[in-house]
């Protein structure tokens, strides 16, 4: 998404444009993730109704920790297999990555405003998140 809709390509976005663009990205991310989550839940209800109607079945499923899709590849595969669980995880991933997308949007917008300080701040926050993700994968 371009940081400043409405403003011309050559004029740098105003602070208000930046806020509006970030707001739009966050709003869109939340809506998309809510849609995916609901879809996943409905698919899961149809697919594996036993998880939802018995407390024991749910507890047994919770104990089988290996069952949760926990890599992007596994989630992707699960979606195509029509697994409600994988679709729910995809919705959660969209929700988790929404603020990151907002951060990327503001970094791009600040860069277009030639605002060095804020570009550097957003980029460094972004790299902290990236490092924590990579460390989590390596150590996890």
């Amino acid at each position, binding site marked *: 998404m371009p940081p400043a809709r409405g403003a011309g390509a050559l004029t740098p976005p105003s602070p208000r444009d930046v806020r509006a663009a970030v707001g739009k990205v966050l709003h869109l991310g*939340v809506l998309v993730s809510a849609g995916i989550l609901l879809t996943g839940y409905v698919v899961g209800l149809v697919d594996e109704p036993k998880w939802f109607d018995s407390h024991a079945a749910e507890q047994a499923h919770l104990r089988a920790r290996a069952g949760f899709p926990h890599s992007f590849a596994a989630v992707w595969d699960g979606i195509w297999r029509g697994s409600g669980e994988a679709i729910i*995880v995809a919705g959660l991933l969209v929700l988790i990555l929404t*603020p*990151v997308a907002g951060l990327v949007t503001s970094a791009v917008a600040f860069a277009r405003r030639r605002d060095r300080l804020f570009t550097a701040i957003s980029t460094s926050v972004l790299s902290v*998140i990236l490092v*924590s*993700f990579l*460390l989590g*994968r390596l150590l*996890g």
Partner: protein
Amino acid sequence: MIGLTAAASAVVYFARGDIDPLIAGPVAIGVLVGATQGSKWLAGIRADRLRLLFVSVLGVVAVQMIWKGVG
């Protein structure tokens, strides 16, 4: 709905397989609906009614937890 600091750690939990979709899914849906509608209603709601509602919800949750703990 989810802060940047939370996003940084949530991705780690995901990579470790600690996010259970059956628990996190309903929680996320509830938070999304509650946060969007709640922020809309907050401006027009009376504080004393909100307090009453909050206390009754907490009361129900407390009774539920005691019930589960005892039973």
